[in-house]
Each structure stands twice: as C-alpha cells, then as structure tokens.
C-alpha cells in the first residue's frame, strides 16, 4: 500500500479529509485491500456471536457474506462502520483496519468512519420525512449547501426508483411499498457518495426485476466503490460477487447458544464450484441441514 494513502487515512480522524479515490488496478494485478480483518470475534454481553474471522476485502470488488441465519453476517458487517458501537452490550475483539488504519483505535471518530463507509440495513428504515428529504439527508449532514435536486435524482436513478417516485418526491418515504422503501434506503446511502457500501440483504424484499436492477447497479458502481453484501440468495452471490465468505454456526463450548464462524473465504467461482471445506460444499449445493 502506498505510504501517502495510509497517512491520509490516518488524518481522517482529525480533519476529515477524504481518501483519494484510486483507479481499479489493471487486470492481473491484485486489488488493494480496503479492509484487513484478523482474528475478529464479536460479543453481545457474554455471548460470543461470531469468532475467528480473518479476511481481506479488496478495493473495487464485491465481497459476499453467505451462511445460515444467525451465523453473524450482520454482526460482522456492522463492525466495518462501527455500527456495533450503538449497541451497549456489543464488544469487538481482534483487528479491523481500513486502508491500514485501525478502525477501533480510540482516536478514530466513528462519525468520520460512517461518512466513508455507507450502509443499507436488513430491514428498510426510511425516515418519516419526504422521499426527497430522505435522500438529501446524508449530503446535508455532511455539510452540502444549496440545491440538491441533481444529487437526489442521480441517487434515485441509481437505485432504480426514480421513475416510480419522480412525481411524488414530497410524499413521505413511509408511504412507499416495502421494496420501494429498500431502494429508497439504497438511494439514501449512495447519495453520500461513500467509498465503501455495506449492504445487508438489500434485495430480500424486492421483486426479481428490482433485484436485477440493484445487481446491475452494484456491478456498475463497483468501479468507484467497494461493496460488501450479505445475501441469502446463492444465485445473487454467484452472479455479482468477486469473492465470497461462507460463515456457519457451531455449538459453543461455554453456552448452549450457537456461535458463528468464518469457514471459507475465496474467489466466488471457487466457493461455488470447488470449495475446500465440506461444510461450504454442503451449503452451496443446498444440502445444509
């Protein structure tokens, strides 16, 4: 990693200067690691929800997290933008670095982290504000002044929602259908122009057409962003992602609740065709109990 980039990121806690965007590496050259995760475990109180996660997320790639319900995919995803800070009982062990900066260093301000690392949540959560104000919220919070019409339109186009709402931007975001709400949340996240987009099952409430458009969007914007997506949809992971992490749950030694763990992390092709681990193979071929 170039030294100056690391330094720039290190500064972000202090003065909020953005990390310069880099172009995708030419074919054949491995992409830079955006996140470096090693030996991470997350606890909720005494309960260890997920353990032994080590992986690197590369720039301009789509990384998919798959695995059975409760294996800690959402928990893990929320570590990348310090969202777990909001849960009193949650505690993160191990190292997560972003462009070489320890995300959990006491000097790091989570607000600055979240301005660079956007998130779409598992359940749609639009604000009880107008559609327009929902999308404009992020830019406004980041200090954008003046007319945001173009930003709003572009974000809604990007989330494949523009045509459905362009005549009702003043209506409440809550008045949309579940699937439309989720696309509104996607638009809201991309309106802030983040460097990384964390997406927690963004398509679980969408019909196949809208899903297809969101997938197209992801592939399109990975030129500029880095995306981590949690999905229960194997085809989706296979279609859009470059690398896939498979998590599963195992019975705990210390309690009867099941702890999640990372089983295998590799190129998506490999995970879906010739995985190393038997558990991965069983899961992706649908033989998981």
């Amino acid at each position: 990693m170039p030294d100056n980039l690391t330094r720039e990121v290190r500064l972000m806690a202090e003065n909020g200067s953005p990390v310069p965007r880099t172009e995708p590496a030419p074919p054949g050259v491995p992409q830079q690691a955006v996140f470096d995760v090693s030996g991470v475990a997350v606890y909720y109180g005494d309960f260890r929800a997920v353990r032994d996660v080590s992986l690197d997320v590369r720039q301009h790639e789509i990384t998919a997290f798959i695995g059975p319900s409760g294996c800690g995919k959402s928990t893990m995803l929320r570590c990348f933008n310090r969202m777990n800070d909001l849960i009193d009982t949650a505690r993160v062990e191990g190292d997560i670095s972003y462009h070489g900066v320890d995300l959990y260093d006491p000097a790091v301000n989570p607000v600055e982290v979240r301005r660079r690392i956007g998130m779409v949540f598992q359940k749609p959560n639009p604000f009880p504000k107008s559609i327009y104000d929902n999308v404009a919220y992020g830019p406004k919070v980041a200090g954008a002044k003046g007319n945001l019409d173009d930003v709003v339109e572009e974000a809604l186009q990007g989330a494949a929602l523009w045509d459905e709402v362009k005549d009702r931007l003043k209506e409440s975001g809550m008045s949309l259908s579940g699937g439309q709400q989720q696309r509104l949340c996607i638009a809201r996240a991309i309106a802030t122009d983040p460097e990384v987009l964390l997406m927690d099952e963004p398509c679980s409430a969408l019909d196949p057409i809208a899903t297809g458009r969101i997938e197209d969007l992801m592939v399109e914007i990975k030129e500029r962003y880095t995306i981590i997506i949690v999905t229960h949809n194997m085809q989706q992971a296979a279609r859009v992602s470059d690398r896939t992490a498979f998590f599963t749950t195992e019975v705990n030694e210390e309690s009867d609740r099941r702890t999640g763990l990372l089983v295998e992390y590799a190129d998506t092709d490999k995970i879906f065709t010739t995985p190393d681990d038997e558990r991965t193979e069983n899961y992706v071929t649908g033989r998981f109990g």
Partner: protein
Amino acid sequence: MTSLASNPTSYSLEDFHGSRSRMRKERIVRAVLFTAASTSIVISVAIVASLIGEAWTFVSQVELAALWTDGWFPRRGMYDVKTLVSGSLIVTVIAMAVAGPLGLGAAVYLSEYAPATVRKVVKPALEILAGIPSVVLGFFALTFLSPVIVQRLNDEATQFNIAAAGIGVGILTIPLVASISEDAMRSVPMALREASYGLGARKITTTIRVVIPAAVSGLVAAFIVAVSRAIGETMVVFIAAGATGGSLFSTDIFRPGQTMTAAMASQAAGTDQVRGAGLTFQSLFFVGMLLFLVTLVLNVLASRFVRRVRQAY
C-alpha cells in the same frame, strides 16, 4: 372412530347458535363495562352543568361593566376578567419558559445521551420531584425563589410576586414534561437512529433531525399536558403570588397578581363570608367556567396541531 373425526354432511341454523349461558355472561359483562364508562361521562356532564348553571346566574345578574374594571375584588363587586385571565396566562408562560427547556433537555439527555446506569438513578429522582406536594413548592417559591432569585434580578420586586409563582409552577411541571417527552423519544425506533448514524450523522444531528421530529406529536402532547397543569395549578400561586383578597389589574411580573385558580381558592377558603355577599359565591363558578373554557380551547388547538404535524410525516 371418534365423533370429532366425522364430518357432518349438513348443518342447521341451530348448530351456529352457540351456548346460551355463554351469551348471557357476555351480555352482563358488556352491561357492567358500559355502566363504568357512562358513569364517568355522567359525572363530567353533571359538573359542567352545575358550572354552567351557577355561572349563568352570575352573568345574568352582574352588571356587565363590573366584568371590565380595574381589578378583581369580588367583595366590592369588581369582577375584572382580564385580571385573572392575564394572571393565569403570565404564570403559565413563565412556567413553560422554565419547564419547556429544562424538561425537554432532561428528556433528550435521558433518552439519547445518558448511559443506562445514569438513567437508572436520574429517572426515579425526577419522579420524586413530581411527587413533591405543591404546597411545599409554594413555600419554596415564596421563601427561596422570590428573595434569592427574583428579588436579586429586580430589586423593586415585592416579596409576593408573579415571577416567583411562575417559576415555582415551572419546577412543578418539569417532571411531567421530561417524562412524557422521554417516553415519546424512546419510542422512536432504534432503526431510525441507526439510519441516521449510518449516514455519518452526529448524535446531536440525529437527535434534532430525526428523533425529535419523529417524536413531535408526543412532545406537543407533553407541552399541552404541562400547560393544562400550569393553568390549573393553584397552591403555588395562592401562596407565592400573594393578592389573597383581590388584585389590581397588572401585567408586571414583579408584583403580586391573581390567577383564576388562586382567586377561586381564596374565595372558597372564606366561604361563610362569601355566602352573604351577593354574587361573590356565583363568581367562583363563573371563574371555574372561564378556566374550563380556556383549557378546552387550548386542548382543541393542540389536538389540531398534533394532527397537522402528524400528516406532514
């Protein structure tokens, strides 16, 4: 084979009648509940009717000029309405100027900022404040707020003054504002806060732009309840604002004043003298009627407002 498993081939209407005793029981339950609900309505109607009756006697016999004079001196036949209404409104405005910011601030702190451990201590403390009898607060207003705060702000202020009474009423309503507002803010779904934080908003931004707007109908409700409480509060004003016998019309908050409630209390306290004194007794009901109308208007306005704000979101 049991009879449960066999499917009847035809039904008659009687099969759907159900058990008779069961139906009778249900009818009785309904009647009891109906009585409970209607009793409270009947009582309210009776109160309003007696208010209207006596107030009407007063209005129809009093000289109208006596309703707009220099002050409220019922025993001298001076029933200046504006003295009492403005007194009540001034006390309420001062009270809300105290309780609004402090109550809302406490609510924001408790709901958004305080760690669970702090909340566990502060919330019961607030509830203790709510349990202080208003008589005690009245003396506190007279013996502490008046000399230590009000008279220091303005050395012309008399010992009995409207300002001290208003601040006292404000302190009395802080817990009310704080606890209703805090409930309203805590019932805002965590998912909305997460959405805001996830977009890089700070805590203060999230509170002001997301939590407070989403809780606004509850916050307005808190404000209304507090205003009603402040207008209806009697004891603090009775003790701290002075003017027990009567009051000249005055809008000076550093001088004694009279509110609707305190005027009623001071007359009711001297019932036997009042009885003989012509219309003074009825004037009490007249003031009660005024109080009722003011509160009613406030509530109607407020519920309109709440509805409008709700529609906006």
